[in-house]
């Protein structure tokens, strides 16, 4: 039996932040891939795909992230498989991330003037040549700042994975509080760690927005 010093608590929380970072990077990558597909569906000329992508966004945006986590963990058990907190946390966050990233990128693509589409079509480019060589490179520049800004939201979102028993930063804080009975100090340090991760990202996003707009 040994006591926790304040320094121990700080190090334990910093060490626990690796799960937060890992979960958010996995979700960001998976969500980015799925979001790209959703964006393609949204700008495609096919009505059905368009509405499917739009409906997905509306449903994801209309439900709390916490409910998405709970559905992915408790709700998916109806499939009869034993789903781990890791899998369901990744699934829930990917769902959320893909919908929002898809919408951010759709906005960027739609902000490119239609003259660009027409001009590239006049050069007899195919649809995917237009997209890949003309539209997306320009849209990429416009979407970088909001995409980086959204990363901070994903990192904050991982804290809700604690509700399904995924031990990341917020959950570790609760566990440490249960041992040390020092909620004020522990949650304060936790908030500082989150701030330390998210604030530089927010600043970077703002700087990018300034430097990439003309």
């Amino acid at each position, binding site marked *: 039996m040994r006591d926790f010093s304040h320094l121990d608590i700080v190090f334990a929380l910093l060490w626990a932040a690796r799960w937060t970072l890992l979960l958010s990077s996995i979700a960001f990558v998976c969500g980015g891939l799925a979001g790209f597909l959703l964006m393609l569906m949204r700008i495609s000329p096919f009505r059905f795909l368009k509405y499917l992508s739009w409906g997905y966004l509306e449903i994801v945006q*209309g439900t709390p992230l*916490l409910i998405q986590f709970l559905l992915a963990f*408790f709700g998916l058990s109806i499939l009869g498989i034993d789903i781990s907190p890791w899998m369901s946390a990744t699934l829930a966050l990917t769902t959320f991330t893909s919908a929002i990233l898809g919408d951010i990128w759709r906005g960027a693509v739609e902000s490119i003037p239609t003259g660009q589409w027409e001009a590239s079509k006049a050069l007899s480019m195919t649809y995917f040549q237009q997209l890949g060589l003309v539209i997306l490179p320009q849209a990429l520049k416009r979407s970088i700042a909001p995409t980086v800004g959204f990363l901070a939201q994903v990192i904050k979102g991982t804290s809700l994975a604690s509700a399904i028993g995924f031990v990341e930063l917020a959950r570790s804080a609760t566990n440490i509080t249960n041992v040390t009975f020092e909620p*004020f100090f522990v949650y304060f340090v936790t*908030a500082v760690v*989150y*701030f330390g991760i998210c604030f530089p990202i927010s600043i970077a996003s703002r700087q990018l927005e300034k430097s990439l707009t003309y």
Partner: protein
Amino acid sequence: MGYRFQFQVIWENWDLLLAGVGLTLQLSALAIVLGLLVGIVGALCRTSGNRYVSLLAAAYVEAIRNTPFLVQLLFIFFGISSSGPRLGSTLAALLALTINFGAYATEIIRAGIQSIDHSQIEAGMSLGLNRRQVFRLVVLKPAIANIYSALTSQMVLLLLLSSVVSQISAKELTFMGNFLRSRTFRDFEVYFALALIYVALALGFKLLAQLCHRRLFTFTRYI
């Protein structure tokens, strides 16, 4: 996968869920009203021209925007209660939601204030409007129209965020859902119903906001 859906759990306990919806709406509405007040004060501080006051408001906004709501909530509920006044879970939830919404509202309202060009005020004056008329018709109304959509979507986010306060046992909709699930073991049915209810609430609020926009800001159609 021979699973039999049993949605009657939801119908049989509709009063429980309705009570949850009631508290969710109450918490959100109160947090919106109080948070808007915080936001107005914060925005006035941000645009006051006094460096320290402005910096203080900026620090508040950044601190809230860059930490998860869950941690803010736990800090207020457990942290402050452990070394100060004991807050009930509902009160702590309201406090956390208000502080959170206040920070976002500060930024949005600041943008609204700064969106009105000074020449507009001069133009209003030269048309012979008095100071109060200028403030009401030239500054306030267009400023609100400019930030209306940002503000209402932030309100929808707050409504959805309020589900997190179930973590400190404030008895709103998600808490009721968790309670029902632990009693009946109908995991999927309960959370699916919750998701539908939240979608309905969010959509209802959006529609209401659109209707209000059409009635309030008729002038935007001519700009």
